[in-house]
């Protein structure tokens, strides 16, 4: 929608750039670049406008709990007074950016707890299902579940972060036919019912991955968070063609066979990332529809950001909370639920695109799943560009094999020491040795995964697990195999080179450098994301 005047949200759109096309806004970390794309051979993929949210989210949640999908009874029928109930929920990595209160998790958890109270269930634990992500702080937990839930459960230790390294808190429940160990939270495994509360921001999320990954640890994760699965997921955003998901689905079956009963609640949100009003609203408008006031506002914002110190910019952007609206909620048996969820994600995000391109450009924003309230370090830049965004396709990649990916991001050689201690070591030692994911996996993964200090920091501080930067690098495996070159515009040259990429000071320079690989007069496609779009490439 534009200026709120359209009656129905418009779907995603592919603009063919001509001489009259205005410059395009590229995200560039905590800032923006205005870029003019070559006319006649460039196109821009715009995300769909935000779908209308459900008019009565709380009513829709209650309805979903009472009308489950698949082979499942309504939630109230699964609750009884002498039971052990565990409610697990997605962590700080979802949604992005964090959403305005009330968070969807709060709405859903309150609804679940109301039913549990009605049934007289006393033994209830709430677990942030963060796998090997960092622990959530009190403020972050309060934001996710709401103050009422937090105050009722956290003080006596019934609301907490999952600890994948707690030797007493984890249990191996079995093995898949592929020899994959299935490690799981002991509390969840010993519960009569696990209710999982999900926010499905992209098609990769949800399904069996919620529990088989979120409540597991390195013993399980190493079977699907690895170079082989990443190389065989085309893409990992397309569950049906993803080895990552196939492994999680196999693990889900082991959990079920082991007697773990899971009631899955999945939700989807619309594309209202930056709001219809306010300073960020421009980012949801198509440039040729900008008013004069919009242009002035953007230029003023950009000039202000260019002058601000990095820390101040980071703080300003981190404070942004998206006004996401709930577009669907479904509950019940995992696979039945997830099929509907995925359809709802696609309904918002899928954009039909004809044919591949020689050069794919992306402006990377200030945030990814692993730097909420933190720093977007170079490894996360790689993961966001070559992992998440590159894989946001169905069918075939947006860029042809051997093509060039041009990213725009400051890519500072900077790390949050509390959140990402092992990332620093990964960057200093591992990438100084090799950038080949398979070699990295073979030579270094075990050492980092079993490092006692990282484990200590993961368990007691707010650090991502020692193995986490490896997963970030593996996330780019498919892209690294597929692409002929990666260029980062406006990045710290040393940091960019450390990752094996090429730095460029401007998009024009980058396009010239790319022509060495793809030849003169290449086709160019810009993926204008976020708000999130997923390319359905034919």
């Amino acid at each position, binding site marked *: 929608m534009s200026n709120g005047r359209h009656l129905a949200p418009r779907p995603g759109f592919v603009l063919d750039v001509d001489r009259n096309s205005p410059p395009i806004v590229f995200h560039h970390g905590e800032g923006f670049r205005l870029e003019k794309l070559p006319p006649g051979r460039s196109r821009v993929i715009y995300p769909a406008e935000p779908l209308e949210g459900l008019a009565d989210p709380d009513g829709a949640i209650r309805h979903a709990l009472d009308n489950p999908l698949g082979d499942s009874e309504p939630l109230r029928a699964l609750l009884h007074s002498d039971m052990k109930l565990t409610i697990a929920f997605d962590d700080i990595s979802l949604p992005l950016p964090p959403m305005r209160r009330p968070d969807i998790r709060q709405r859903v958890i309150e609804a679940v707890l109301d039913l549990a109270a009605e049934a007289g269930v006393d033994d209830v634990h709430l677990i942030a299902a963060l796998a090997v992500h960092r622990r959530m702080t009190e403020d972050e937990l309060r934001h996710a579940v709401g103050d009422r839930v937090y105050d009722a459960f956290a003080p006596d230790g019934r609301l907490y972060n999952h600890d994948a390294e707690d030797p007493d808190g984890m249990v191996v429940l079995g093995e898949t036919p592929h020899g994959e160990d299935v490690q799981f939270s002991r509390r969840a495994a010993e519960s009569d019912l696990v209710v999982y509360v999900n926010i499905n921001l992209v098609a990769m999320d949800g399904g069996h991955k919620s529990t088989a990954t979120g409540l597991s640890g390195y013993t399980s994760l190493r079977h699907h968070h690895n170079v082989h699965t990443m190389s065989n997921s085309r893409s990992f955003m397309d569950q049906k063609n993803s080895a990552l998901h196939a492994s999680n689905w196999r693990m889900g079956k082991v959990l079920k066979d082991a007697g773990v009963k899971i009631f899955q609640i999945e939700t989807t949100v619309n594309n209202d990332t930056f709001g219809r009003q306010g300073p960020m609203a421009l980012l949801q408008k198509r440039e040729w529809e900008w008013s004069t006031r919009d242009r002035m506002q953007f230029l003023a914002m950009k000039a202000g950001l260019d002058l601000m110190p990095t820390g101040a910019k980071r703080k300003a952007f981190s404070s942004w909370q998206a006004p996401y609206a709930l577009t669907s909620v479904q509950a019940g048996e995992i696979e039945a639920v997830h099929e509907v969820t995925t359809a709802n994600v696609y309904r918002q995000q899928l954009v039909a695109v004809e044919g591949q391109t020689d050069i794919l450009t992306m402006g990377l924003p200030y945030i990814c799943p692993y730097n909420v309230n933190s720093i977007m370090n170079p490894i996360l830049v790689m993961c966001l560009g070559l992992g998440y965004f590159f894989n946001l396709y169905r069918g075939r990649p947006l860029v042809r094999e051997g093509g060039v990916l041009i990213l725009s991001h400051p890519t500072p050689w900077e790390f949050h020491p*509390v959140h*990402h*201690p092992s990332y*620093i*070591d990964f960057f*200093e*030692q591992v990438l100084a040795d090799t950038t080949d994911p398979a070699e990295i996996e073979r030579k270094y993964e075990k050492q980092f995964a079993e490092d006692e*200090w990282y484990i200590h920091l993961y368990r007691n501080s707010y*650090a991502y697990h020692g193995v986490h930067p490896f997963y970030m690098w593996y996330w780019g495996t498919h892209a690294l195999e597929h692409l002929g070159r990666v260029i980062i515009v406006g990045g710290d040259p040393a940091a960019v080179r450390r990752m094996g990429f090429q730095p460029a000071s401007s998009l024009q320079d980058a396009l010239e450098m790319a022509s060495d690989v793809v030849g003169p007069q290449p086709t160019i496609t810009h993926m204008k994301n976020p708000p999130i779009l997923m390319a359905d490439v034919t």
Partner: protein
Amino acid sequence: MKALQFRRNLPRYAAARIAGGFVPGGGASAGPLSLIDMDPPTAPGPDWVRVRPRLSGICGSDLATVDGRSARYFEPLVSFPFVPGHEVVGDLDDGTRVVLEPVLGCVSRNLHPTCTSCADGRLGNCEHTSFGDLEPGIQTGSCHDTGGGWATAFTAHRTQLHVVPDDMDDAAAVMVEPTACGVHAALAAHVPDDGVVVVLGAGTLGQVTLAALRAHASPRTIITTARYPEQRRMAGLLGADLVIAPDEVRRAVRRTTGSRAIGAPTIDGPREGVVDRLTGGADVVVDCVGSSASLTDALAVVRPRGRIVLVGMPAEVTLELTPLWHREVELVGAYTYGTEILADGTQRRTFDMATDLVRDADLGRLVTATYPLSRYREALEHAAAAGRRGAVKIAFDLRYEKERNDL
């Protein structure tokens, strides 16, 4: 003869210090060093012979002197004016090619009986230095009476000279003296088998110490810090298992040793994830830099009851010694060489071991560039910026000096 002479001149000291502060090696232009014609030194006694240098190296301590950064500690241990240069391969008048062991101990000072250290062959620990028949000077190159290697001739006691094997070229031979320092340091490190050693610095001393550790100890891992690409490359060739930037040393040692780490305290409490110092650490740290920063790093990464060997010549440093006390760390110096007692109880002259190591590890390749005396300013600036300019050892080449060959 032609010589580079260093005179006592306080205004020029100050000028050298200022110039050296702006451009390392810049003290050569502004300071008390000058190229002069002078009479060759007279032999102080019957056991002294004339040496005509072929190559004469420039060492870190020479650069500190030139740039006015030497510790005042040395003032009573030198005699002015003097000719620097103690890394020397040269010719005797009978054509014998020799390398110089520059330490001036009791024998060369004609002191009898010798001190205990000299009697034991530990010349570097001589207890009578600055006494006897010679003017003060702990080594040739800081003693007025002997002259030094940055000249077309100097005089040396016969006990200071080691014949160069015929198959060893001059570049290799001039590396024997610094290599002997590395060998002595490596043996002083007392590296436990399968231990972890950190070598701070990858200049000449760092490189030869690294080679010596690889040859004379059995560590599990040697970590070396190196600032510049050529230093990194060479350290890898000489046996470092891990070569890292200096500011990465704490994290690298933590990873390698499996230690935990403690973050720097802030007003909000300790910062988890920041590596300020390790709780465990390396068995041995060999500091080939000798600065406040390098010694602070050494104390941060050495394990409790570990050993720090100070090889690089320090001047005044500022250092928090609490970790030394709290973790019962040994801090020992490693100065020059003499006679080494090996693990099997046998004794060998350090210079003999260094000669072997230079040949085995091909350390002659560390000599990157040579200059005639007349271009001493360029030579010293090059030496001071060796790492940055892709070099390791810079030396004066006197083989083609007219004055030398006319002698």
